């Protein structure tokens, strides 16, 4: 009677959690496969000869041929793919076309800096937007304080429209070059994190603030909030226990989708701040036409995004167990 019953009519052979985890894992595997195949295909599908492009137009033909042989580009595509997968499994990402150094080394050295930047920015987004959005909703519900609402809407829509790399350039010009408050580039201790994190986090914060506010307004209009209001609980308890959990589970789904976008967004921001991460490596390689590094960066960033997506889904399912039953 008071136990969780499976969806009526559905075959109750497996626990919903098992079904849920299996489905998510299957989706992860399929999408990882897509990323691996795409990164494999990239260097081979690029119009023209990437090896010649990397070595320069005037490179001697036998050097180009030797390099092609070294990379295995002179064999048939299926043959190359069969070789590619086991090498990937051993963590071999090939060598840079320009410097000849192993790409895996580069990734190992630079990925932590990128992830740290993305995670810090994500943390800032959550810390500011979740309570901020709830407060904004409580202040402006039912058409109260129309001026505050106008200011909120205008500010967040302008901030949400500011692209991270433009903001990064503006922050560099303003705070680092003109005012000399903060270091402009590179990773030189904790102070140098401020500008990149700020540039990455500001626009997603504005977006999430609006989403949290809308979700909170929805919750404030529900019957169960009216029922809770009838109990005249202290304002803090009322908002923290009755309003926030329901508003935040819906908002966290959106927030979870922001983290992958933040990881991708680091590419542009890292270029501005010369941040020693994987994104700036990718940007430099694009200019140098070093497609082996671009390929590896796409692979690494894509897989990180997928992995993060998977973890976010699991975390959301733990927070809101009903979604597991609903989605499976």
């Amino acid at each position: 009677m008071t136990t969780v019953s499976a969806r009526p009519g559905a075959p109750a052979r497996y626990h919903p959690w098992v079904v849920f985890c299996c489905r998510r894992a299957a989706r992860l595997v399929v999408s990882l496969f897509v990323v691996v195949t795409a990164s494999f295909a990239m260097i081979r599908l690029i119009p023209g000869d990437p090896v010649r492009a990397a070595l320069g137009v005037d490179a001697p033909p036998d050097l180009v041929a030797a390099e092609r042989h070294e990379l295995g580009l002179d064999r048939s595509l299926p043959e190359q793919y069969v070789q590619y997968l086991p090498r990937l499994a051993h963590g071999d990402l090939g060598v840079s076309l320009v410097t000849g150094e192993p790409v895996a080394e580069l990734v190992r050295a630079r990925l932590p800096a990128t992830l740290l930047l993305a995670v810090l920015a994500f943390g800032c987004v959550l810390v500011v937007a979740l309570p901020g959005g709830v407060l904004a909703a409580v202040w402006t519900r039912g058409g109260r304080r129309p001026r505050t609402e106008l200011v909120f809407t205008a500010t967040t829509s302008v901030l949400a429209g500011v692209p991270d790399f433009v903001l990064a350039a503006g922050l560099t010009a303003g705070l680092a070059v003109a005012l000399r408050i903060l270091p402009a580039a590179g990773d030189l201790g904790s102070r140098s994190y401020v500008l990149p994190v700020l540039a990455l986090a500001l626009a997603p914060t504005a977006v999430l603030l609006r989403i949290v506010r809308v979700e909170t307004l929805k919750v404030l209009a529900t019957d169960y909030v009216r029922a809770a209001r009838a109990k005249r609980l202290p304002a803090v308890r009322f908002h923290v226990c009755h309003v926030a959990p329901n508003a935040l589970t819906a908002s966290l789904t959106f927030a979870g989708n922001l983290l992958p976008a933040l990881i991708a967004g680091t590419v542009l921001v890292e270029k501005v701040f010369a941040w020693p991460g994987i994104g700036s490596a990718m940007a430099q390689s694009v200019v140098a036409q070093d497609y082996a590094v671009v390929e590896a960066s796409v692979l690494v960033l894509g897989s990180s995004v997928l992995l993060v997506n998977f973890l976010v889904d699991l975390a959301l399912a733990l927070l809101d167990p009903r979604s597991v039953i609903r989605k499976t």
Partner: protein
Amino acid sequence: MGVITLVMLGSLVVLAVAGAVLWGQQAGRADPSAVLRAPTTGHPLGTDRLGRDLLARLLAATWPSLLPAVAATLLGAAAGITLGALTAVVDGRAARLLGALITLLLAFPALLVAMFLAALFGAGTGGAVCALAVACAPGFARITQTLAAQVAGTDFMAAARVLGLRRHRLLLRHVLPHIAEPLMLNTTVAAGSSLVALSGLSFLGLGTQPPSYDWGLLLSQGLDRVYTEPLPAVAPGIAIVYAAVAFQLLGEMLAGAAARQARPHPVDEPVAHPEPVAHLVRTDRPASVDHVLEVADLRVALPTADGVVRPVRGVTLALRRGEMVGLVGESGSGKSLTALAIADLLPDGARATWGRHRFLGTDTESLSGKERRRQLATGMAMVFQNPASAFNPSLRIGTQLTEAVRAHRGTPRAEAVEQALAQLRRVALPGGRRLLRSRPFQLSGGQRQRVAIASASMMRPGLIIADEPTTALDVTVQRQIMDLLRRIRRDDGTAILFISHDIALVADACDRVLVMYGGTIVESLPAPELAAGARHPYTRMLVASVPDLAAERDHPLHSIEGGPPDPSGAAPGCPFHDRCPHRLDRCAVESPVLSPLGPGHEVACWQPPAAAPSHGRRENEEAQK
């Protein structure tokens, strides 16, 4: 807001068209004598490596920046919308496959996909546009899929399918027109993000290639010398933000226009009494110690899209300790708003006024806000109509039962749990502590309503307002719930205001019945008299409309002709006069006041027809047989 948006968009269009014509030549003219100049009056933004004027280049770049963004958005929207709309018209299996494909594509951030494809297609404007179109298509596909699923579930789609319409016709004629508006809104917003993404690609060196230029490339070139000269980097950034914000505002404006059609106007005017009625209401009646609740001349004004409506217009009622009073009336008669006004739970924007409001022997006017909240919290409880939505889905039942006593009485947790268990036993719910640990969605509707009643009686309040507590439940559960309410009234001496549209249920369960029509109480009488002694024409028609098992099946069911009165309450006279068979000339002009007729019987009618209606007589005859 609207004006600003239009000015911003207009300036962009003018710049896009005129920019290349007016400044194109100047932007391309290299001046070897003035390379990398700082901003001067001749060159407000300075010059670049070849001595070209940066302001001219910035203005001339409007067209090459905006056009690819719009093109990429339109291409992506076309592809995505087609993919998403297909899910609505193909068969189940194909639709599921398409859905899975969209989910898979959405897992990759658009920017990363665009970078990958731009590198694949070769750096250049064409490649970047194609890459971006592909990258933004899944987002469009998902939105279209969601919107189309709503359309696919509608009756007219089912009808169209039964008629055997071909798929592409179904898509073009039935699905797309119904979702066009939100899609256009989404396209506007996406154009802004495309502009940003394209600039980002150019900034990375994957988009526009020199000697062509757009804002992204100008920003990238400016950034190389940002340490010496910030302006060449900041100016293109401002241009990108300006355009992005213009698109964003356009989206907001469209969304706002769509939402405004449904949003009500707030009550601006202080709710003044429209007609002076104070002299009609007997506020001089002595306050009775025995009364739990006394309300005189309660009025509620509610703002809507069509102006202020007044759903409650001068309700006067009183409940004695331990009395169960039924409040009946048809939908829209103002019963629920009366209850919410008494409980001070009116929706945002609604305003209540009253001539007198005494609760538990204290005048509410004399209490401070805090005292009033405390009095309402401990003295009054509510049971709502829909038990499915009356509990917070994310909190355990135990928390929701005990939090009020803990907050207002300071009861320790263990003691509060014991009290809750006692209340659950009283409402005949087995399960005890296990039930307290469960969440609302694990209970059935009947169980939830029992928990709601247990929760309402936790404080042993003086008054429980039950707003249609049985309407959402089936008949056997209805009876159990009524029994529970009666028992709580008997055990605790709690007064119960029972709101319902079911006059038979009310006559059966309550001591006294208040009949509400058009925002006023038209009759108040003891429940046993309802069947035979009702005097107001509306009450009698209501009683006559109840079918009973003895009713002859050949006779048509009684119904009340006409519709409910105008909710704005502007019309003078008795609210029932145009449906009333006994109306007088006076009824259309002057509104009758609730006046005593007999012991415990009051009616608001200028000439109440004599008692003994046909329905009651027939019941008596049945009883005699």
